[in-house]
């Protein structure tokens, strides 16, 4: 086992796949000799050279379009968008072209591509460089959406995303870049569509994603030690494909469900999960479901404002405790 940062694990995942498959190439802004603004590609240029790790102009439409054209003609390209907010600049390419071309051509065209991007808040970057955009992608048929919460998953899910025959949006959370964790030795691949139960518990289920996973785990530990509440925490890992069965099985055991979502509230991924539970596990529930989310408001840059907007450990603990008290 080696210890890697979340940031280095992403590069390690790409390196693992570039080493085994010549068709894997990487393009983006400042990713070559500079190693990326967030150092997400550090070492790749030196190891694989300028043909496989290519700098681009500040041209997000061209980056994403070129990735699509390369994917439809035999490569497995990875395109980097420096900030996930920049997806808004490329939305035609992503929504109208990449997501629909396989379907519209009745399967003639496959698009084995990955768009990796620095996502999420907590770095005081303000409303245009802090968004959690997983829901944007989740809403579009034809896109797979991945959001790892720890270094081992970052490496393994990156590898799976690159091997996947379909388009994958890889949301890499900025607040986790410096987090260290053990990463398995040898080739590591985490299949898409398998949620992880990161803490077992009997009293309630907390479903979280990306940077909300460590917060949910910390909240669960506090709920246990301070209030005797035994919470199960599920790390979704991927929104599409969605591992609904793991959530359903957990809710059937615990009878209570909370989601913890960094995204603005309206139509967040948790709403889809609530809908599934309402349809398929209604009679297992002992209490109303609660979504713990950012409000439907942009993120601010000031630390105190941003921290009070995104769900915090305190808010998760307080919300769950209150709801479980009410249910008694």
């Amino acid at each position, binding site marked *: 086992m080696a210890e890697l940062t979340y940031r280095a694990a992403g590069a390690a995942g790409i390196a693992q796949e570039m080493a085994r498959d010549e068709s894997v190439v990487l393009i983006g802004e400042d990713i070559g000799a500079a190693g990326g603004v967030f150092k997400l590609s550090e070492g790749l240029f030196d190891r694989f050279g300028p043909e496989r790790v290519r700098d681009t102009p500040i041209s997000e*439409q*061209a980056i994403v379009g070129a990735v699509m054209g390369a994917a439809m003609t035999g490569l497995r390209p990875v395109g980097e968008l420096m900030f996930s907010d920049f997806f808004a600049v490329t939305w035609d390419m992503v929504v109208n072209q990449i997501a629909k071309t396989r379907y519209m*051509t009745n399967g003639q065209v496959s698009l084995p591509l990955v768009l990796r991007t620095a996502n999420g808040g907590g770095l005081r970057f303000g409303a245009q460089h802090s968004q959690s955009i997983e829901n944007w992608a989740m809403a579009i048929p034809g896109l797979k959406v991945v959001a790892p919460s720890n270094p081992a998953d970052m490496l393994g899910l990156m590898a799976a995303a690159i091997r996947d025959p379909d388009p994958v949006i890889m949301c890499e959370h900025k607040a986790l870049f410096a987090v260290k964790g053990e990463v398995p030795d040898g080739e590591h691949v985490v299949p898409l569509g398998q949620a992880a139960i990161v803490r077992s518990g009997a009293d309630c289920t907390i479903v979280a994603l990306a940077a909300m996973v460590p917060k949910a785990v910390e909240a669960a530990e506090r709920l246990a030690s301070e209030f005797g509440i035994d919470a199960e925490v599920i790390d979704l890992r991927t929104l599409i494909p969605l591992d609904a069965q793991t959530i359903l099985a957990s809710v059937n055991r615990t009878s209570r469900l909370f989601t913890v979502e960094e995204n603005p509230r309206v139509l967040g991924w948790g709403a889809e999960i609530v809908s599934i539970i309402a349809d398929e596990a209604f009679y297992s529930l002992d209490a109303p479901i609660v979504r713990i989310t950012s409000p439907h408001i942009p993120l601010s840059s000031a630390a105190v404002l941003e921290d009070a907007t995104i769900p915090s450990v305190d808010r998760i603990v307080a919300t769950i405790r209150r709801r479980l008290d009410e249910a008694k």
Partner: protein
Amino acid sequence: MASPAKKSAPAIPPDVSSDVSSEVGIALYRTMVECRQLEVRAQELFFEGLVRGTTHLGTGQEAVAAGFAAAMRSDDYTFCTYRGHNHTLARGVPMAPILAELFGRANGLLGGKGGSMHLTSVKHGAMGSYAIVGAHLPIALGAAWSAQYRKSGQVAVCFFGDGTTNIGAFHEALNMAAVWKAPVVFVCENNQYMEYTPIGAVTAVPRPAADRASAYGLEPIVVDGNDVEAVLAVAQTAMDRARAGEGPSLIEALTYRHGGHSRADPAKYRPADEVKAWLERDPIPAHRTRLLARGISETDLDAIDAKVRDAVAAAEAEARAGLEPSVDVIPTELWSDGGSAWRN
């Protein structure tokens, strides 16, 4: 190159001593006639109610499609727009599945999932018809980058309209292609109108593509897009340049849409004398005149016309015989596993 003043079309260059062989000249003629007859019939079938949705016909612009297709290798890539029937057909895609797709039938090129604006046949190198203006320029660049990386010698050819030169993706793709020396040929079919508006009224330079070329370090290239042999010549030069690793080209082909923007558009905004002048420069009779001057017989050319008419009729019959798609196909082919599951 004569400039296409608003009211008068450029004159046909007197050309009877081209180095194009009779065989190639006839093949170009046949391709253009195929495009024309299929489009004309598609329009008739639209008015019959058999073709649904919308169609954007390429009548009048056949020389661009035929000239470029003749310069392409079978494994080269064509990327075109929603006005893409000509380009798709010119790459050798059979007529019947094209018509059947327009009809929305199961035997359509895309099984009824795409329609007129998305004709694609990967095995013919027809890599898609793109219906959002400008999107396919970066995508064609990506295919060219892939060919460059794989050292396959393939070239991507990307056709688009004059209106596309005013969208951001045009600039991004041209710049990145030039920086990367990507083997891609960008072909602006300047049919003088951005949908319903004269291109000159919404563009800061007189030549929407050629006048932008210098911004990407490229030569300004303008060709008479109604002269199929002139198109073939510039196409060959650009393809050779791309294959030699010398990078992209940007070509502006001057042409004219015989009809409106789409089937909903009677094109009443165009001055009658302008339309008349361009109709007199119809690329098909012009090329026919040239072939006759070279000694090809009227009988031979009439025989081509008749054979194409039969082929269109046969394709129509085949397309009409197709069934409506089964609704069972709705949840298929979103993903590479053939299905559309998003959860377990």
